[in-house]
């Protein structure tokens, strides 16, 4: 049995590789879910009733079921039920399936946060824009968007911090993120087995990452504190 100090570099190297995958899923999800959420938000606020109902239904289903189940369905449904395994069995396929599940799931949560931010803006802002002859899209992008962003930063930071930790759910379809990497040392990997401490070590990664994000959100809030 090798000593802790001998095992440490091996474990850290493994966790680093796992965490890279965690970060990749995190950033890809944000990149997809931030704009998709806005689209779903507009859909759920549409004046056309059927469109509105459809998006509300989507939000209800996505927010009403566990992300873990959504991951399993998105990954296995095409292959097992439709007999068309679009994802393949490789890590890249598992990553793509995870990204799709996470983007849809988080976009629905973001859309409701956006909606809250939009309805909190006084109607006078729309009316002022309209009587100044601005188009609806100008009013949204030039007048309301920044006010909305300012209002939604606190709930968004909550959701983004949760996302960092939620990426571990992709473990359920064997995505090799950091929890998967830590767990490997329990079963046995690279000459280390029965070790649970690497799993505990993963917490430090999440903690540091979320610490940085907390600082980033505080900075953004400060940056937008020039207006009320």
């Amino acid at each position, binding site marked *: 049995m090798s000593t802790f100090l001998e095992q440490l570099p091996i474990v850290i190297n493994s966790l680093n590789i796992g965490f890279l995958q965690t970060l990749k899923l995190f950033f890809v999800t944000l990149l997809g879910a931030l704009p998709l959420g806005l689209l779903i938000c507009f859909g759920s606020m549409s004046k056309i009733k059927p469109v509105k109902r459809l998006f509300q239904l989507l939000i209800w289903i996505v927010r009403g079921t566990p992300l873990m189940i959504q991951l399993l369905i998105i990954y296995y449904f095409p292959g097992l039920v439709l007999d068309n395994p679009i994802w393949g069995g490789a890590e890249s396929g598992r990553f793509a399936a995870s990204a799709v599940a996470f983007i849809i799931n988080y976009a629905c949560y973001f859309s409701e946060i956006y909606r809250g931010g939009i309805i909190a803006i*006084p109607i*006078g*802002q729309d*009316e*002022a*824009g*309209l*009587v*100044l*002859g*601005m*188009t*609806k899209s*100008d009013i949204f992008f*030039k*007048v309301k968007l*920044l*006010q909305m962003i*300012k209002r939604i930063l606190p709930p968004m930071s909550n959701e983004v911090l949760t996302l960092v930790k939620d990426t571990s759910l992709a473990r359920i379809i064997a995505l090799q993120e950091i929890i998967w990497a830590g767990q490997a040392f329990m079963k046995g990997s690279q000459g280390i087995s029965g070790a649970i401490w690497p799993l505990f070590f993963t917490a430090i990664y999440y903690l540091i990452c979320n610490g940085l994000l907390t600082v980033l959100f505080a900075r953004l809030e400060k940056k937008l504190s*020039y*207006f*009320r």
Partner: protein
Amino acid sequence: MHILEVEHISKSFEKTEVLKDICFTLEKSQVLSIIGSSGSGKTTLLRCLNFLEHADQGTIKVNGELIFDATDPSYRKEAVMRRNLRHFGLVFQSFNLFPQYTALENVMLAPKLSAAKEKDYKSHKKEILASIEEDALKYLDMMGLSDRIGNYPHQLSGGQCQRVAIARALALKPDILCFDEPTSALDPELTGEVLKVIKSLAEQKMTMIIVTHEMSFAKDVSDQVIFMNDGIVLEHGTPTEVFENPKEERTKQFLGMLNT
């Protein structure tokens, strides 16, 4: 020719009739004050003129040109409304400045966005933006705000905010500037400074429609006064006629001329 002709405007919300067959005309460079108790329809009338509401019946003409006809849905198309809206400016009771922009940016935003949609914008961008800024500075100066151009709305007093809002409306060079109770959110001191700039606009022959509860101001600045009650024009005349010789009992009651 009348600068504004409002004919048979009616408007209901659900089953409540808020405006009933409103007719009046306005001449260029005249000031029209609309007085009346809360809920009499004054604000709704202004909102119909600025297309924030659509009248159910009636027509609106500016300089003889039909800009709204309730029977013709084409006047409710967004692009048509935006073009016809250029005749009017509206100053709100609650200012509605854009909080993330400075006073100067508030005044420049709409003219900039509108200029950016013109064909020759790209080739003359610099000159166009410079002339928009020059205009904005001129209007802010007119409002006595030259030293406040870089301030954000939350750094300004209510009176200063309202004056920025007036400059913002003027920057689009409307034919008719409308005010919806422009001083109702202000204390007496700030009210005075806003009324002063409105009066100076009247002296510069700006055509204006002012919904107000400031009776002595209305009497002082107006060419015509309309007293609205329950959605109708109950009394319409010169300030002397309406304020000193009202025909209707209800007007007398509203003006506090009856001893009860």
